[in-house]
């Protein structure tokens, strides 16, 4: 009798512990490889590390060197240009496509897949494909010239003023379908009779979208902007594949800056400092978001 209750207790115990046991390894791994390394990186950014980590405290010396570095400011400015345009165009195109698809057109499923498909590619593939398309001697420019437009030039990829905009084009191509899917889900969640009520009230379709539907999608805007801006800040592979940061360092983003200083130029300290700056930027976006999310779930 007592042994059977013992067994049952054991069984209960295992059952109760099982989720924790299963989650524990990933928890430990996350703790070490993400938060542990963040702390390590934070410490390194205050040392004199160059090629290899060194642990002698150097105060804010690396940050001072970072801020004095012209290349860092190019990367930061590029991030503002890239991030801003990337987010704006993804939103505009995504919303536009979502509204069109929401008109219950035929073949909607196929179209949705077509627009969403780029999201399934890695940024490396996108970057490489667009590198070929935009390469003056290989892609679009050559094609147009062969078709007889002799004066057609599209050399943004090799133009140091314009290179960052090619990154915008490829990024928007890749991500606007995803924004479309987000907004389409939001639009589908809106009660049909709201639109009918507005029609009875006398509103035209554009007015209905402008005054009622798009404003009531505010939470979707919020999610889309958060997701897009963290994609923008982390952007690394797209630039590496498309322009490699060039010409020169004209299309560097903070992530590629960090990589080249930390791992190819033997300036670990500056790399660590720039990584911390990126972390701060992401935190500045994510923390208010998490805060408002958590608050609303606790309330709701």
């Amino acid at each position: 009798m007592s042994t059977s209750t013992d067994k049952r207790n054991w069984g209960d115990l295992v059952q109760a512990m099982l989720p924790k046991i299963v989650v524990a390894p990933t928890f430990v791994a996350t703790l070490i490889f993400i938060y542990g390394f963040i702390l390590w990186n934070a410490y390194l950014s205050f040392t004199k590390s160059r090629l290899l980590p060194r642990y002698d405290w150097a105060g804010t010396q690396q940050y001072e060197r970072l801020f004095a570095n012209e290349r860092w400011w190019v990367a930061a400015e590029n991030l503002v240009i890239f991030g801003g345009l990337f987010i704006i165009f993804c939103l505009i195109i995504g919303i536009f496509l979502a509204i069109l698809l929401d008109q219950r057109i035929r073949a909607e499923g196929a179209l949705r897949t077509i627009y969403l498909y780029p999201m399934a590619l890695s940024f490396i593939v996108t970057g490489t494909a667009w590198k070929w398309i935009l390469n003056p001697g290989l892609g679009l420019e050559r094609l147009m010239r062969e078709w007889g437009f002799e004066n057609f030039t599209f050399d943004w990829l090799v133009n140091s003023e314009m290179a960052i905009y090619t990154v915008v084009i490829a990024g928007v191509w890749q991500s606007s379908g995803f924004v479309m899917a987000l907004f389409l889900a939001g639009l589908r969640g809106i009660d049909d009779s709201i639109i009918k009520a507005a029609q009875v009230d006398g509103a035209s379709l554009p007015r209905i979208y402008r005054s009622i539907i798009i404003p009531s999608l505010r939470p979707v805007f919020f999610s889309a902007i958060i997701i897009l801006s963290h994609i923008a800040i982390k952007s690394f592979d797209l630039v590496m594949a498309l322009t490699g940061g060039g010409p020169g360092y004209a299309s560097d983003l903070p992530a590629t800056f960090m990589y080249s200083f930390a791992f190819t130029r033997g300036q670990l300290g500056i790399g660590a400092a720039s990584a911390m700056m990126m972390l701060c930027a992401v935190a500045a976006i994510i923390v208010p978001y998490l805060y408002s999310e958590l608050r609303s779930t606790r309330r709701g």
Partner: protein
Amino acid sequence: MSGLKIDNIQKRFGDVHVLKGIDIEIDEGDFLILVGPSGCGKSTLLHMIAGLESVTSGTISIGQRDVTHLNPKDRDIAMVFQSYALYPNMTVRQNISFGLSIRKVPESEQEEIVQRVAEMLQIGPLLDRKPSQLSGGQRQRVAMGRALARKPSIFLFDEPLSNLDAKLRVEMRTEIKELHNRLGTTMVYVTHDQIEAMTLGQRIAIMKDGVIQQFGSPQEIYDEPVNQFVAGFIGSPSMNFIPCPVVKQDNQLSIELDNETGKFYLPIDGKNAELESWVGKTIILGLRPEKITHDIASHADNQGIHRANCRVGIVEPTGPDTLVFIELNNTKTVCRVDPSEAKNTGENIDLMFDLTKAVFFEPETGERVC
């Protein structure tokens, strides 16, 4: 002039024939109810009146004006939706004034109208809230307010009360009726609830499968249903339908009823001509529960009243009346009995059958015989 005339309206969604020729005509100021089971096409018809759904064939006129192909905004109508359909991003005030601002009503006048509507519906304190901060009943009021803000020639309601709890539903029902009395505007009201239909309507159109079964006043429909569907749909508890053989008993046309206590015959007065040919056949007797009561001595001498002793099945007290179930010709039959006269299950009760309002239906088609 803002009556409504619907002339042979048809509606198809692809292969699905939803409305099969609807004709309705009401006068200005009438309260029309469209009632019927779910899926019979009530909302579709209402949306066609509003212009939100295209017409396959037929015409709709409001007043003297043919509006069949006009946009909703040009039809001079206002509508209340089942799901309320409030604009989620706007405050109550903006919800009410949205239609006005689209029609370019001056701001000061808008404010005046909002105040008037808010007062009428007692939603003044809610004006600056968003719909998500309102209860179901409050949303319902705001939806009504939005419709009331403009002075349309017709109000359309699509099951406006079906999402409210029972008590609120009864209150709002009364309020809508008062509103109609006060405004005197033509109203078309869709519901699947026959009690709502009876209490609110001046004219009721009962629909089934895209066809109007009967169109008339509540009392007409209650007393003189044209078929078994209408008879069974209106009234609660529902009318009893008892298949009974028609016989000649002592040279008097009668129907034969069989209870556990034995057979008895109820003579039919007044409908001999129509039922003569049914002798020897079985007909469906339609008798409302309140026409089978306990023995009321003062009624005993009235015409068409007959007594019988029956075995009591299940008993359901409702408060004012007790519903007693008996078995007649193997059909469960409800009787409405005074609570003090009700008997317990298994006992016998003296019942009084009042056949003056009895109706008879064809067993196969359910059509009214007489």
